[in-house]
Each structure stands twice: as structure tokens, then as C-alpha cells.
């Protein structure tokens, strides 16, 4: 228990609320096109901190619906084109507020199903980019909506398996280099479809365990620097494979805590860097997976608080 404390819960909450209302900064300019994912990171973080009720729920919900298009898909913000990743973020936000019943889910699921190609892969939007991230987004979205029946799950799984590499990791398309972010997506997709038995879990687990560096942090690929976002992507993959004990969690907790900004709140990618909501979410999610008593527990595949997944 001691290894987590003290987590400045109020400070992080203040940071997140401030970031949520920022619409004037340079950072806002650079991230405005994916504001809906920003909302998901912020709101999930606040929920993990037991502070979701401090947000302006109705205003946020009506803004989310204003990002939805005729096709059923959501854009990253008002006036942004629809895509799968933004659609997932929208659905996750609605799930957090337990307001999925207000969603025209038939439209959303038909949008998602329309993006599956004959080889089982998913396009990110109508323009045709294929990436294993989109497979995870589609499968997770449909799992939340309990409508996996509308896609060819067997083919989707075949595509994920075709992204498996020599080292047990996964890439963005068949043959692309293993990357922890993609490993998370592929393991997540296999987990949600009860297909983890298809891979050599020991090999994948070993590659993931080798992501931990001497400073306790995790990296995304061999010979890369540690980064807090992998405290989620690598860690949740290990959790889905039931191998959390293959790395040193105390050292990882230490690393994440070092990345906190103890003056202004929030968590950065690396100690002494500037915090942002993206890394704040991944840091808190990692701490939650490791059992931090001040946080709600998060589900490794759904990336939502456990209590939401019933």
C-alpha cells in the first residue's frame, strides 16, 4: 500500500479540470482535431480519481452528440470528419456517464461494420487506411455495445494473427515492426474475442517484460527510452496475459510517480517533462492496474473503470 502514497489526488483533479476547459492555448490548437479522445482521457482519469461528478455532464454529452455524423460515426470534434477512433472515444465517454441508452446504437454499429474489409481488417474511416489499432477500436466499441455479432469476428481475429511477428509482438499491418501500442491493441482484440489461445503467450509476455528499463519505466520498443504511456500499453497487455508479476511493479510505480508535476498536477511522459492529459491518463491507469488504493480499478481491455463493465 505504502508504495503508492502520497498521490496528490486533488492536484491532479484540478489539473484535469483546467485542461478540460482550455480552449485558447497552443496545445489546444494542436489537439483540437482529437478533442473527443482528450475528453475520454480526461473523464476516465477523473472517474478513476472519484471525481467524475465535478464535470459538466450535460454540456459534455450534448457536445459529444454534436460530433456525430449522419453515417453514425463520430468526428474528433465538431466539424471534424468521422472515424473509428473518435467513435470509440465517444462511446467510452457515454459509457462512463452511463448514458449509452441515449445513443442510436444501430447507426453506430452499422458504421463500424461498414469499415470491415474482406480480409477481416478494419479501415479507420472511409478513406481506407488499415491498421490493427482500428481492429481493436471496432471490437471494443462493439463489445461495449454488446453487438459483436454484426462483424466477422473470425476474420478479424485472423487479421490480428497476421500482424504477429517473430518476437511475439504485433505491428500495425502484417509485417510491420512490433510496437507496444499495437501489441496492446492486438492483445486487447484477442482478449475481447476469447482468442488469446491462438498465440504463444510466453513469447509475447517475455517481449513485454523486456520493455522495463533500469529506471523502472517501460519503453515501447527495444532500445527506446521509457515513457509513461507504456505504463498502460505494456502493463495492460501483461495484465490480459496474466503476467503482471513478470516485471517489477514497485519500480514502475516509482517511475510513474516521478513523472508527476507536484506543483501544477498532471503526469508527463518522462520525469521533469511537461504534463498533458494523455500521459496523465496513462499514468493513473497504470497505477490503477497495479492496485493503487486511492484510485478506482480499471479494466485492462475496456480501458474503463471495472464498475462500468457489468
Amino acid at each position: 500500500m505504502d508504495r503508492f502514497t502520497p498521490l496528490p489526488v486533488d492536484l491532479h483533479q484540478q489539473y484535469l479540470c483546467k485542461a478540460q476547459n482550455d480552449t485558447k492555448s497552443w496545445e489546444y490548437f494542436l489537439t483540437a482535431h482529437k478533442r473527443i479522445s482528450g475528453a475520454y482521457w480526461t473523464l476516465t482519469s477523473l472517474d478513476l480519481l472519484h471525481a467524475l461528478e465535478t464535470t459538466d455532464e450535460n454540456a459534455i454529452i450534448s457536445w459529444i452528440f454534436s460530433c456525430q455524423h449522419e453515417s453514425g460515426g463520430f468526428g474528433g470534434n465538431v466539424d471534424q470528419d468521422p472515424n473509428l477512433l473518435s467513435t470509440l472515444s465517444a462511446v467510452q465517454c457515454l459509457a462512463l456517464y452511463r448514458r449509452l441508452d441515449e445513443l442510436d446504437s444501430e447507426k453506430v454499429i452499422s458504421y463500424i461494420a461498414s469499415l470491415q474489409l474482406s480480409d477481416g481488417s478494419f479501415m479507420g474511416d472511409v478513406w481506407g487506411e488499415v491498421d490493427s489499432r482500428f481492429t481493436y477500436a471496432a471490437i471494443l466499441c462493439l463489445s461495449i455495445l454488446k453487438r459483436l455479432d454484426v462483424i466477422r469476428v473470425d476474420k478479424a481475429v485472423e487479421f490480428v494473427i497476421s500482424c504477429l511477428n517473430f518476437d511475439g509482438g504485433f505491428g500495425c499491418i502484417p509485417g510491420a515492426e512490433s510496437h507496444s501500442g499495437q501489441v496492446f491493441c492486438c492483445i486487447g482484440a484477442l482478449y475481447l474475442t476469447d482468442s488469446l489461445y491462438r498465440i504463444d503467450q510466453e513469447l509475447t509476455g517475455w517481449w513485454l517484460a523486456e520493455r522495463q528499463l533500469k529506471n523502472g519505466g517501460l519503453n515501447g520498443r527495444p532500445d527506446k527510452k521509457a515513457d509513461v504511456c507504456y505504463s498502460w500499453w505494456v502493463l495492460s497487455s501483461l495484465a490480459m496475459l496474466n503476467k503482471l508479476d513478470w516485471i517489477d511493479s514497485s519500480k514502475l510505480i516509482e517511475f510513474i510517480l516521478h513523472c508527476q508535476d507536484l506543483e501544477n498536477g498532471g503526469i508527463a511522459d518522462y520525469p521533469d517533462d511537461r504534463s498533458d492529459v494523455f500521459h496523465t491518463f496513462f499514468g493513473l491507469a497504470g497505477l490503477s492496474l497495479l492496485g493503487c488504493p486511492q484510485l478506482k480499478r480499471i479494466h485492462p481491455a475496456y480501458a474503463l473503470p471495472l464498475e462500468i463493465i457489468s
Partner: protein
Amino acid sequence: MHGVRSYAEPPEEDSARFISLAKEALETCKQRDFSSQALSLVNRVLELNPDEYSLWNYHKRFVLNEIEKIMNYEPASFQEAAEQLFDSEFELTQRALYRHPKAYSAWQHRIFLLKTAKYHLPSKIYEGYFKKELEICAKLLDLDDRNFHGWAHRMRVGDIRGLQPSREELQFVTERIYGNFSNYSAWHHRSRILPILFKDQRDQYYLAVQEDLELVKQAIFTEPEDQSAWFYFRWLLRGAPSYQTTVSVLDIDNEILKKELCILEELLTLEPKCKWALLTKFYLLQIFGDFDNAETVLTTLQKLDPLRNGYYMYLKEKMRRSS
């Protein structure tokens, strides 16, 4: 932001101006306004932020719209107009990528352009684009040899052309490995290319694997603590799983494995605390059924590499159960 300590942030009034500029650009997209004025507004925002994916989508619609317009031209003028169109689109993404080499949407826009060019233009023109594309990838990999966007783009370009990995591609990868033994990306692509290249040539594959064991040897003696070559080494020793069609060393010759064990012993004399040599030695000892020594190696590893103590405990337990 990744790796950002304190960046030179423009003053707030500039941020506000850019935010309203982006808003204006998105409004333009909604109106399907393809005037040169609209284009230059959109391009201005894209240069500031190449992640603005909807603006790239606008460009895609613009390209399709232009092609439809020039479709009925005489062949020569069609070609001229099309080249002008594609050149300026490629240039726009190139400018974005040199400044932001990890902008997904900018890479993806180039893929769209290549596919569209292949569909609409005569082969001598689009072949030129493909050739240039590989050169640009190589240049970007010179700047950052681990940029996975650059590597994946090379593969995507090959796919659009309908090409299988070639000996030239293997050569490209080999040069990258010799340039930097820690280039895990290059080792990865080697593991991808070899099985396809020698798919139906068992003897040649066998020779290639032996050459690779030599290559690995050079790498691990040069950079014994670097994991790149060690992961590749393990793959060569393990033989590929069913999802990769290949021949494993295990299938070929147990003598090779014994020779590799000797090489590891040699390295361990020089670097007795080399974790990776010990881990690989453990793997081979286990194959030879030498469980006592394998267990001793694991105990050493637990001390040398305490971060992964849990993993080594798992291996010990598993070995005890199977022996």
C-alpha cells in the same frame, strides 16, 4: 507532449489566431470550396499542424474533383495537368513530414496519392512516383533509422505495386544492420523478408540462416548488452512458429546449436555478467536437457536482472514441471 520540457510556445494571441484559422479552414471544407484561396487557407493550417486529418480528407476530395475535371482533356494536356496536381500534393505532404515525421495522416495522404496515381495515370508517370517514394523513405530513415512510419510506408508502397520482398530489399536491410547493430527495426524486417524470399528453396534458406548466425555473432560481440540482435538470435534458434512459413535451425542440425553454445561460452568468458548471453545459454541448455545447469543459469539471472525475477521464477517452475 512527448519529450517536451518547455517548448517555445507562441504568444497567446497567436494561438488564438491559429485556432480561429483552423476553424475557418474546417468551415471551408464543409462548403466543399476548392478555390485557390480556400486551398491556401487549408495548407497554411496543415503546415502548422499536419495532424489535422479532416483537412487532408479535404485534399483527397480536391484531388478526386480535379481528376474528374481534367479527365476529358487530350492525353498530353491531361498528363501535364495531372502531374502538376500530384507534384504539388506530394510536395505538401513532404514538407509536413520533414517537420513532423510521425504525422499519421500525412503518411496516409501519400498512400492515397500513390493509389490514385496508379489508378488514373500512365505507368511511366506513376512508376516515377513509386521510385521517388522509396528514396524519400530511405532519406527519412537516414534521419531516424527506427521511424516505424517510414518502414511501414516502404511495405505499403511495395503492396500497392504488387511486389513481394526482393533481394534488393534484403540488401537494404543488411546495410542498415551493418550501419547500426542496435537497429531493431532492420532486424525485424530481416525476419520478415527471409522466409518469403526463400519460401520454396530450403537449401538456400539454410545457407542464409547460417550466414545470419555469423551476422548475429558480430553483433553480439560488438554490442553484448543490446537486445536487438539477441531477439533475432533467439528467432533463428527457435525456428519460426506456424504463422511464418520457414525452416528452423532445429529442423536442420543439432550440431549448429552446439556450436552456438560454444560461441556463447566464449562471449561469457569475456563478459561474464552478460544477461543476454546467459538467457540464450539457458534456452539452449534446456533444449539439450541439461536442466541442472539451466537452473543454475536462471539463478544467476535472478541476481543479475532482478526486474524480471518473476519471469525467471516462472521459467524455473515450468522447467521443474516438465523435467
